[in-house]
């Protein structure tokens, strides 16, 4: 499946059905992903409490919060690893049920986990096509896959991966992250979730990855990034959402936040500075 940039993304939100949807906004302007009152309990422990979040296409939404705030749990609920105890997920304005990772994949949600889920003993092409190989006469179509992999990396302006046939084990952290992101993008994803993409990276590698995130958003893909690093967040995010002890305490355009108010929200859940909690999605 050769992936041409134009076909894999839409620069304007897709036109959904014309019937009225739950968000009160006409479907054609609804954010790609909307979470409404998402709650997740593990026995007596409530990991997520009535989380409302909008993730619009073509923008980078940063999900920040302290350890244990519920960021990973929320991501896993979107990715189909957990099913929310209550609440709704809307995709293009329509309610959807995501019970397995395959469901999420079919919707167009791709998740890049912190451990990247790459096979060190395989090369870049083999990793990018893992599970979805191109076949020709019941054998692997190496040529098609290699061309497609090179194309995707070029589209994403990933220039640091010199040969797509080198083993992933020999790539640097930033290159591995780029390959993992490219793998997610190849599936014509509409939403890409990145869990701590820059956590283990050095300065120039971080810059590589942030550049890649910009490129994704520029192609109309909705990007949801979990990060601890406020520098990276302010460098790349269009929107920020802050979680504190399982609740989404604040979200809005990045301009509404600064480093100190962000830290306040992360640590205490509230900020005296001029940030309006639950700002309407723009």
């Amino acid at each position, binding site marked *: 499946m050769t992936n041409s940039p134009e076909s894999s993304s839409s620069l304007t939100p897709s036109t959904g059905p014309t019937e009225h949807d739950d968000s009160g906004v006409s479907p054609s302007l609804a954010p790609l992903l909307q979470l409404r009152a998402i709650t997740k309990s593990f026995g007596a422990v409530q990991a997520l409490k009535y989380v409302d979040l909008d993730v619009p296409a073509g923008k980078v939404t940063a999900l920040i919060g302290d350890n244990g705030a519920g960021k990973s749990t929320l991501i896993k609920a979107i990715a189909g690893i957990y099913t929310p105890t209550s609440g709704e997920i809307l995709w293009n304005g329509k309610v959807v049920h995501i019970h397995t*990772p*395959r469901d999420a*994949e079919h919707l167009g949600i791709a998740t890049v*986990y912190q*451990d*990247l*889920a*790459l*096979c*060190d*003993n*395989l090369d870049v092409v*083999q*990793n990018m096509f*893992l*599970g*979805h*190989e191109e*076949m020709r006469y*019941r*054998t*692997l179509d190496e*040529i098609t896959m*290699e*061309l497609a992999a090179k194309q995707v990396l070029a589209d994403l302006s990933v220039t640091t991966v010199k*040969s797509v*046939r080198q*083993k992933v*084990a*020999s*790539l*640097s*952290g930033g290159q591995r992250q780029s390959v993992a992101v490219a793998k997610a993008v190849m599936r014509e994803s509409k939403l890409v979730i990145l869990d701590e993409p820059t956590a*283990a990276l050095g300065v120039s590698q971080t810059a590589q990855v942030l550049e890649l995130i910009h490129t994704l958003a520029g192609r109309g893909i909705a990007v949801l990034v979990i990060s601890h690093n406020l520098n990276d967040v302010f460098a790349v995010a269009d929107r920020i959402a802050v979680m504190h002890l399982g609740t989404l305490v604040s979200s809005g355009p990045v301009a509404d936040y600064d480093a100190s108010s962000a830290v306040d929200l992360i640590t205490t859940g509230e900020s005296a500075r001029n940030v309006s909690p639950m700002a309407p999605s723009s």
Partner: protein
Amino acid sequence: MSTPEVTNDPQFKTSRDQVLKQVWSQFKGMRRGDSGMVPIVIGIVVLVAYFQIRNSLFLSAGNLVNLFVQATTYVLLGMAEIWLLLLGDIDLSVGYVSVLGGASAVILTDTQFHWPWYLAILVAILVTTAIGALHGALTILLRVPSFIVTLAGLLAWEGVLIYVVDAQGTGGTIPAHEKVLYDLVNTNASPLVTWIFFVVCVTGAAFLILTRDRARRASGLLVQPFVITLIKIVTMAVVALLLVLVFNTNRGVFFAGHRTNLEGMPWAIPVDVIMLAGGTFLLSRTKAGRYLYAIGGNVEAARRAGISVNRYRLMAFMLTGFTSGVAGLLYISRQGGVSDNVDSTLVLYAVAAAVIGGTSLFGGRGKIIHALIGGLIVAIIYNGMGLLSITASAEYIAIAVVLLAAVAVDSLARRGSEVSR
């Protein structure tokens, strides 16, 4: 390498140790990962030269053919191990399972059953594949390491083998009189057929390589320089030519005034070649093969990619069983039958063959060709030591040293190929 002076035992051991140490340092000094074949080939050359110098019969046609036939068993058993080694698993029972398969065939043809050979062979293969499936099912369902399951298998199937052979009431051995079973190893194809076989193999391989290169060039992808490809093909052709010449040399001995005619390749050789080709195709050109590598490399990544890990693990166990079955048929053919007293080192040679050839014990790395190289090396050592009338104890130690060296090299290569981030 000094010419060894042998007058008494201690000196003898020293020079052999020197040679073995030299082989070991060759392995150690190799460039990490990529040039895996070169030091092994050098190792083969060193070993061959050593044995030839010690006993000039080593490179005689008769001995070489004998060596290749010995190698066929080790190659196939090594191949049987590779399916599981790729996953990071292992099968400790391949020795006994393969002989059990061979025994099934012999019992069905040569005792009261008198089944036709094709049915007997089919049953033998089914038995070993089913045993492989059983090992796989136990490993997967019980979540017990394959090491333990197949260790239990090692003991259990040895017991079953002894029971089954003794139950035939022939005093603990069953000779294989059935023509096809016996002929597998002990009869040769005619020289003409030998020629045709090797010509077909080389032209087929050359064709595949050239068409693949051409397709890659047409798509604008990077290809090895044509000179390299040409060198590869020419080397293949030269090796095949040498093999044909060796096989077609009349190895017959003079006896009672005339010479017996013994020429052509034993039928075990094409059996091995076909198995190797089939295995290589499966591993390198099919989804199933790709997934075996993925599971061995990072099982969690494979799972997240949607691969049904358990299905492919079971497949690998069954492939191990299947390959052991074929190995067992060749084994009993060479032994001329089956006895209740089986060489318990077979499994060690199987793992040694796979690992010496370059397959990693930790999973994710290995190719079928490794079984060929490793099996050849094991056979060279085994055969050479036989020619030098070396005691069994020294033989074990030598193979152990080479195995240890190969594993050490594997571990070093693994460390060297990871880039610090």
